[in-house]
């Protein structure tokens, strides 16, 4: 089976500071990868670079997504091609209603594939269906994007958008942060419902907790801009128990930073 995502020796910097120092990662359809690592290791940067955040500059390496050169695509085309980023901090957009926002998103994707826009009734039906997956309140759907949403509501809204857009590869950036246990279960449940043999998920997380709900096939440890360790689900348990110090020690030859 060919790889869905193939990252080779990816280097990226922000404001002249190199954050990613040679990432290699291959993700195949049907797989769930977890990327763990201490704060500041480059986890969120990797997610941002893959999504096309203009704040980051790619200085080397390549990323192939479904056979296409991902790095040459605009953020919106990456989305159309099936990449989805669930933000660690979803952005509030006052004055733009969820409905208008989602309608624009869904219809632009359809336009990209030369399809007619959805009719108003089909669109609302789709909204209803997908809302149910993460138990997102109808009231939230009629408000401005993320405005005044609680932390849990924002994360649920991310997974709702993921359900609407049906991506091939979802990157969940610290989706567990700021969630209580019930919200975590709902959000993880939503992700699991959307999982098929044809799509893949990259779960970026600091803690093992989320991985109790979203079972990874592979766990990678990112440290100082490189993947320094890869293993099965058991690696996450070791990290939970022993923390990251032993990784740092192994990698740096010293204890801590």
């Amino acid at each position, binding site marked *: 089976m060919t790889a869905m995502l193939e990252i080779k020796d990816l280097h990226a910097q922000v404001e002249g500071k190199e954050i990613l120092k040679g990432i290699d990662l291959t993700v195949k359809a049907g797989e769930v990868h977890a990327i763990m690592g201490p704060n500041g290791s480059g986890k969120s940067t990797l997610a941002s670079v893959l999504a096309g*955040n203009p704040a980051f500059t790619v200085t080397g390496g390549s990323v192939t997504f479904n056979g296409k050169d991902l790095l040459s695509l605009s*953020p*919106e085309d*990456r*989305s159309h091609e099936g990449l989805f980023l669930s*933000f660690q901090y979803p952005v*509030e957009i006052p004055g*733009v209603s969820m409905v208008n926002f989602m309608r624009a998103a869904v219809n632009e994707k359809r336009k990209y594939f030369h399809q007619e826009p959805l009719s108003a009734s089909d669109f609302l039906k789709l909204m209803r269906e997908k809302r149910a997956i993460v138990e997102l309140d109808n009231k939230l759907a009629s408000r*401005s994007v993320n405005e005044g949403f609680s932390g849990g509501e924002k994360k649920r809204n991310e997974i709702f958008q993921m359900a609407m857009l049906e991506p091939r590869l979802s990157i969940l950036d610290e989706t567990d942060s700021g969630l209580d246990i019930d919200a975590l279960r709902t959000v993880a449940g939503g992700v699991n419902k959307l999982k098929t043999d044809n799509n893949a998920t990259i779960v970026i997380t600091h803690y093992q907790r989320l991985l109790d709900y979203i079972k990874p096939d592979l766990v990678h440890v990112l440290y100082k801009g490189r993947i320094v360790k890869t293993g099965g689900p058991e690696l996450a348990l070791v990290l939970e128990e022993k923390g990251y110090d032993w990784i740092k020690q192994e990698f740096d030859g010293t204890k801590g930073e």
Partner: protein
Amino acid sequence: MSAINQYTDLYRQFGRRIDAASSPVLNALRQAALAALDGRRLPAKGDENYEVSDLEALYAPDYGLNIDRLDVAADTDEPFRCDVPNLSTSLYYIFNDMYHGSGFTSGTLPEGVMVSSLRNADEAASKIIGKYYGSIAPIDDPQVALNTLLAQDGILVYVPARTVVEKPIQLVNLLRAAGPLMTNRRILVVVEAGAQAKMLVCDHTQTADVDFLNTQVVEIYVGEGATFDYYDLEEASGHTHRVSSLWARQEAGSNLLINGITLMNGTTRNDYHIDINGERAETQLLGMAIGSGSQHIDNHTYIGHNVGYCHSNELFKYVLDDDAVGAFTGKILVAPGSPRTEAYQSNRNICASDRARMHTKPQLEIYTDDVKCGHGATVGQLDEEAMFYMQTRGISCHEARTLLMQAFMSDVIDGVRLEALRDRLRHLVEKRFAGTLAQCRSCTAAQACHAKIKK
């Protein structure tokens, strides 16, 4: 040597012809206007409250004037409902600066309500015009004086006491000429005690390549306990230079809403001057300006709280793209002895390109204790984070900008107290940001402007 001189010379030479093609009530003020202009000049760039607009320069070119009131061949084959269709209004036209009445709606106004030409007014209308014309706009203002000297026609809207006009009165101003033209228009609105009315004024330019200097003076009298809405919508061409000066006077317990909207224009200077002269009056002064290309939009406002116990709320918002220039200067004055005044002013702006410029000067002048007043101004850019967030959802950069700019204007649109117009305006603003404004067959003007909107 001021640009005024060519107009005073014109009047000295052709005054008789100007008078002959106007009416005695308008002619009555011309000598006073001429005297007021003696030795004066128009505000020039850099004068106080004219930081970016130069009226001397705007009035300097040699424009033609239609002093003999020759009929313009306006195209009325299709009813021109400008860009606000599906809105049931009593519709009237002014072609260039000549009143052309309605032809569609006669007989639908409530009894006693008058909508009339200022030039061809009947006896009853002339009486009202004679009483109010020039009584609200001060003739010592050179802009007002110049308009008073030259204006030969315009519209009177008169709503007698305790009369409610349900249907909005819509005035469509169309500019159309073969060569550079100066138009001088006058609008007089008298809403007597306890009466209610709404008015929508739409400015369009049909010949987009022709230079226009379009001056207007609007006088609005809002009687005791009366309610009046005035929506002032400009959707003109890049060659239209508009100098508009609105003067309103409010009596006790009255409620006035003014919403000035610049969707498409060339160079615009709007003055909104409101005097609140009676207690317990309410005032809403709203405005929005959307600029792209090399559009220039300058709004100057003044709200005078001359008595106590009144509320005013002022909000102006601008979105400027490309090389557009915007200016806002606004003053709220709370006169001595005006207790319990509440007055708020806000001006918020987005410069969507690096080259767009916004100049803002909010002012409060308070001479009474025991008041609640506030003001603020902001200039910012489109939210980059929100842009990226939307793009990751597949929304194109262009569409994301459109959504954000549209969202920014939502509170000014929400301030419209006429539901059909509110919906219509939301749609117009959406189209304006999407770059597809004014595709209606009657208006070729805006189509020429599309080219200027950066995709």
